[in-house]
């Protein structure tokens, strides 16, 4: 009898009680005989991908939906997609939570008395139809307000409104970019946002515009910038009054006084025109209209040192392919029009149009209206001129300033019909709620940029009793006409695609998820006269009284529409590492003067508005400037710009007074400074003794086939946290919630650590380093943590008893402990990735380098009798990164990209002196 068998027999007796703990007998997957075999290419138990489009913001990024057993479990950017080319932002990654959110509307509802009651679609539609016919007699006007819609849907809306005699209002977007559009309209007759070809520029100057957070199409800009950077000759200056993620990532960031952008730009324009004469010379009167000024004056006005001003101007004038973009809060202000026009003129003057400022492929924002439009709408409703008001995927009640009294006036309409997916501030007010399907449940297309079509297709049947955007309108038409719906939206779309793209083109669209039409270059001409008028008619610079509250757009929730996604409050804000807001950021000086510390609550008071917010001290922020993310402030006191009708996002003359309370704000970072610990070493440190020769008693342990490693290029990383969201979704990382975050018990496997130095911030993505000599392993008493033949620190959840010794002994503190049982309320549980188990209470977990993906890739390779190829697969974080900062691969493969990066002279590893030999390699850039 062999020893093993003997032990085994013993084990039988001793283990028989233990078996239950193996969980066997517990059925996990269903075991069902379906009717028909699945269509070709789909294998039950294996993943398959379908293309669609992300609708979390108007940018229209293409996504590949990863399906397991018919359930979407992950979104990934479509490589080669004209908008996002494989990248996807933090919001896009999170938007699966929208699909599976437990609070999604589950069916149509009608207000009876105070509250909403569920009704049938039939009933709902007939109510609309009836009041439509009723309103025909009356003089009341029926109005249709939507968020930005493009492509076939927009056309369908127009058709519907025409048929039913409804007035379609200009679309409502919080970020309407009014000033830019106005300026472009006045100067070039193109009232739209051009497509900025940053990748072709060698010098980029951005004024206020938040390219990386929300501006029009952030993922696209991110990719363009990083590809330009990869070229090497690219330089990027940013000018802003506060501190944004965009500013943090520019090569140089200049802080100017809020509201003085005008001065800066007219100076730059003047300089540029003096230095180089544009291809088509500007008219004399235009030149005359330009205010004379000097660097020193402008420096006095803007607060930017004059040598810096000269330098910027110099770069702008001398660069071969300069590009100036002004926007965002830079133009959302009184005098924004001048800023925008000056910027446009600089673009003109520096010959950026049309090479780098492409109006042919403009971003389809022309139908988006202004704040003034909303004022009028509210007024009309207030005067009781509104019949039926349709509110389609828009939430004005939340985002419009109080003074418009939109909420109150809404009640004066004879019937308000809200169409959306959540019971948000607006839908709570309406009489009739028509729930809309998630884009992953519906057919459709979007045209985020002229000539670019992106496909929406249902990858699963609707979870609830909802209709797709198109079908709602069609059913409504059908109801009113009484002839039933004129076919489904799907048929309509296919026909339309066939007509526009032809048979082949439509199939390509369905297969690839996007279609790009070739458009002729568009030569725009400058209307010098109008330009001159614009400049001349500019009023005096009205100074936003100090201190100024800047309402900054939020990376995490856009204009607030993504607040509903729990995971986005779980992922810290890159700059402050605050997870559950709100808060107001304040400069060190101001805080010191007012004797405020982090988390102290203050009351902010403007003219007709006041709110209480906790304080976060923000390094690199200028004195006299506070900023808060707009999405965290319901109905903020936005003024309307006299000239453009756009919103003014600077709130001048804000007074602060401490309430004496201290708010509970989870600030995850324990220290904004790295205290000279060299997590991000100073470039010079890289040279001296980077390689620590390791002396050990023990023989080296070998890896035969694979040794997985990750390279992180800090020069590319911009801290956008897309990887964090991707990791959350891929690995079933639970949402811990505010209470746990206050104890620092976040569960994220991957975190972005911001470290500040003299107002400059750098980001360090920190995840399990998969050390070669891992301190966590040897201390585990039960082998739950151990080293596997492929160089991974495996964590066996089923074996873990929860001593937490591994976490104590991890210098990187990347292990996460399940302090309690985490809930996955139905239907979010359907989002769980079946390749990754949900962890039990009391066990340790951590980044696995997406071992499930490794396993899948090896499985495939084994079937084909080969080794895994480099780049054949990658981790969730690396896949989602819009800048390509993360590279995953096999270190034993000398040809692999990761091998090359790991052996670059820019490479270092965190806490190298500890001799843990991490498999995560960091590449440190050298900022100019």
């Amino acid at each position, binding site marked *: 009898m062999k020893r093993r068998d003997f032990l085994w027999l013993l084990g039988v007796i001793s283990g028989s009680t233990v078996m239950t703990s193996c969980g066997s007998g517990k059925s996990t997957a269903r075991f069902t005989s379906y009717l028909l075999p699945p269509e070709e290419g789909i294998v039950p138990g294996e993943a398959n991908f379908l293309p669609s489009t992300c609708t979390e913001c108007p940018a229209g990024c293409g996504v590949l939906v990863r399906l397991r057993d018919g359930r979407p479990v992950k979104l990934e950017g479509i490589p080669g997609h004209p908008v996002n080319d494989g990248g996807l932002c933090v919001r896009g990654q999170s938007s699966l939570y929208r699909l599976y959110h437990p609070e999604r509307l589950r069916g149509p509802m009608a207000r009876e008395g105070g509250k909403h009651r569920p009704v049938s679609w039939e009933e709902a539609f007939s109510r609309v139809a009836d009041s439509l016919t009723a309103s025909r007699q009356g003089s009341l006007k029926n109005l249709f307000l939507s968020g930005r819609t493009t492509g076939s849907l927009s056309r369908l809306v127009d058709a519907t409104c025409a048929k039913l005699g409804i007035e379609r209002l200009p679309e409502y977007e919080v970020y309407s970019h009014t000033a830019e559009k106005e300026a472009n309209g006045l100067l070039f007759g193109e009232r739209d946002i051009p497509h900025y070809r940053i990748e072709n520029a060698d010098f980029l100057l951005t004024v206020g515009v938040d390219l990386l957070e929300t501006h029009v199409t952030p993922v696209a800009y991110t990719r363009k910038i990083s590809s330009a950077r990869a070229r090497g000759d690219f330089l990027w200056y940013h000018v802003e009054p506060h501190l944004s993620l965009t500013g943090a990532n520019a090569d140089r960031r200049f802080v100017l006084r809020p509201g003085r952008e005008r001065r800066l730009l007219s100076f730059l324009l003047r300089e540029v025109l003096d230095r180089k004469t544009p291809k088509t010379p500007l008219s004399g009167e235009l030149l005359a209209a330009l205010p004379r000024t000097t660097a020193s004056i402008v420096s006095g006005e803007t607060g930017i040192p004059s040598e810096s001003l000269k330098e910027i101007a110099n770069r702008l004038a001398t660069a071969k392919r300069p590009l100036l973009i002004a926007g965002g809060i830079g133009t959302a202000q009184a005098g924004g029009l001048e800023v925008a026009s000056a910027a446009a003129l600089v673009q003109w003057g520096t010959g950026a149009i049309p090479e780098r400022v492409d109006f042919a492929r403009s971003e389809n924002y022309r139908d988006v209206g202004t704040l003034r439009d909303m004022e009028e709408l509210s007024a009309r409703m207030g005067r009781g001129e509104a019949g039926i008001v349709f509110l389609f995927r828009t939430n004005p009640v939340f985002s419009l300033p109080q003074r418009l009294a939109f909420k109150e006036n809404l009640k004066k309409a004879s019937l308000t019909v809200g169409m959306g997916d959540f019971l948000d501030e607006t839908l709570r007010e309406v009489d009739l709620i028509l729930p809309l399907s998630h884009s992953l449940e519906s057919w459709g297309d979007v045209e985020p940029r002229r000539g670019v079509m992106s496909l929406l297709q249902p990858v699963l049947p609707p979870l609830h009793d909802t209709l797709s955007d198109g079908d709602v309108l069609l059913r409504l038409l059908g109801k009113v006409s009484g002839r039933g719906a004129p076919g489904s939206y799907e048929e309509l779309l296919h026909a339309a695609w066939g007509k526009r793209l032809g048979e082949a083109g439509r199939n390509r669209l369905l297969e690839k998820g996007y279609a790009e039409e070739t458009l002729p270059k568009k030569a725009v001409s400058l209307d010098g006269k109008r330009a001159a008028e614009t400049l001349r008619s500019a009023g005096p610079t009205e100074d936003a009284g100090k201190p100024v509250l800047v309402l900054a757009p939020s990376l995490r929730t856009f204009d607030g529409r993504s607040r509903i996604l729990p995971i986005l409050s779980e992922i810290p804000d890159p700059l402050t590492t605050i997870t559950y807001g709100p808060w107001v950021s304040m400069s060190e000086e101001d805080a010191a003067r007012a004797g405020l510390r982090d988390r102290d609550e203050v009351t902010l008071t403007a003219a007709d508005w006041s709110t209480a917010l906790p304080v976060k001290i923000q390094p690199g922020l200028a004195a006299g400037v506070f900023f808060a993310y707009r999405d965290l402030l319901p109905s903020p006191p936005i003024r309307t710009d006299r000239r453009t009708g756009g919103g003014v996002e600077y709130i001048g003359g804000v007074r602060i007074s401490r309430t004496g309370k201290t708010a509970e704000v989870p600030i995850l970072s324990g220290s904004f400074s790295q205290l000279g610990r060299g997590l991000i070493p100073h470039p010079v440190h890289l040279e001296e003794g980077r390689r620590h020769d390791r002396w050990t008693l023990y023989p080296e342990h070998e890896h035969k086939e694979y040794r997985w490693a990750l390279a992180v290029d800090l020069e590319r990383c911009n801290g956008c946290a897309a990887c964090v969201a991707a990791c959350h979704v891929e690995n079933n990382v639970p949402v811990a919630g505010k209470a746990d975050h206050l104890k620092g018990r976040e569960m994220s496997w991957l975190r972005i650590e911001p470290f500040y130095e003299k107002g400059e911030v750098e980001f360090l993505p920190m995840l399990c380093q998969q050390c070669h000599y891992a301190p966590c392993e040897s201390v585990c*008493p*039960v082998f739950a943590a151990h080293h596997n033949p492929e160089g991974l620190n495996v964590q066996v959840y089923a074996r873990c*008893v929860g001593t937490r010794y591994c976490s104590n002994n991890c210098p990187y503190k990347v292990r996460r402990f399940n302090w309690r049982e985490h809930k996955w309320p139905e239907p979010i549980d359907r989002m769980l990735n079946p390749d990754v188990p949900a962890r039990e209470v009391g066990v340790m977990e951590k980044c696995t380098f997406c071992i499930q993906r490794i396993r899948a890739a090896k499985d495939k390779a084994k079937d084909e009798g080969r080794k895994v190829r480099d780049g054949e697969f990658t981790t969730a974080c690396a896949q989602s990164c819009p800048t390509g900062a993360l590279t995953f691969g096999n270190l034993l493969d000398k040809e692999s990209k990761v091998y090359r990066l790991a052996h670059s002279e820019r490479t270092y590893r965190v806490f190298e002196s500890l001799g843990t030999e991490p498999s995560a390699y960091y590449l440190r850039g050298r900022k100019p």
Partner: protein
Amino acid sequence: MTRGESSMGNADKYAKVDRDILAAMEKPGRLYLAGLAVTGSLVVIGGILWAYQIRNGLGVAGYTHPVNWAIYITNFVFWVGIAHSGTLISAVLYLFRARYRTSFNRAAEAMTVFALMVAGLFPLIHLGRSWVFYYLIPYPTQRQLWVNFRSPLIWDVFAVGTYFTVSVVFFYVGMIPDFAIARRCKEGIRKKIYSALSLGWKGTERDWRHYAMLYLFLAAFATPLVASVHSVVSWDFAMSIVPGWHTTIFAPYFVAGAIFSGIAMVITLVVPLRKAMHLHEYITDDHFESIAKILLFTSLIVSYAYIVEFGLASYGGNIFEMESFRYRALGEFRYLTWAMIFCNSVVPLTLFAKRLRRNTTYLLVVSLLVNVGMWLERFVIIVTSLAHDYDPYVWGTYRPTYVEVGISLGSFGLFFMLYLLFVKNLPVLSITEIKEHL
């Protein structure tokens, strides 16, 4: 020995010893029962809280992300430490033939056993999944999987397990002859129990010969444990790479600390014991003085260790180490740190004065302070080191919750309850040894 007795015959002397010591085991008084009630209820509360914690996960405790070990491990180390002096007194002093041992050894051995019983609970309490604690025990299972003998925690399992077993044996063996006496003086069911426990001891010369040899060897086996067990416990920390933990002096430092705290606990227990049971003849002030000397001596060692620790950190130039100790001395836990230094290093210095060494009330006060100080020492070492380690981003802090506090109090309750039961049911002094030394 006072004059009165020398005149009396041996038999009477021996009989008196029997009477005096077994007198302790007579009917309990009100105070005793009250004590039992208090400690008992503490135990119950602790138990309930533990159940609550198992039900809802460790989240109910005050742990944070960097601070993964806290009060529970503090208690573990504290109680194991308490145990040590018991072995020191009963085994080491036996080998050195220190006479005054006789007055303490039984009390001390009992303390060892009970302290270990309490200590043994805490590794379980602190586990994330207490219900699979048996994964830590190397036994053959159908999984064909064993434990990681390279992990200090497994060393703990073996060290503490061995220590407990040996202590129990030692404790019991010491009492066998006394049981024989107890059964003589007791009646009814108790007589039966004591007879059984005495294993039918007769005290023939053969018995005594083997007994002497056995006792000698048990002492010999137990002695190295005094050094080894707490070294192993200290390695739980020293074997890690956490700044503030990873240092070579931990083993001797912890052993000294253990004996220090243990001696203090002996004093805490024996002073009231002597008073309550009128054992002044058997436990004299001289005896206390000698114990007090050990206390002073170990206190000096511990203070030395403190100095060395801080010295190493500040002169070593390792920024992580330096920060760790800066934080310990000046961070948010500074009060605890300085309280610890006051209790462990300053207060015992007064024992250089002979008068104070012989003043049992004063000794009691000192010993209580030392107990507090030593508990704080473990807490400070564990928590502050974890709170500020390598990556400043994850620096955090720690505040215990009522669950942790309750369970800790429960552990004290358990210890003192067991001790109260002991004094009423077992001979608190080694009768035979006292006779031997008459």
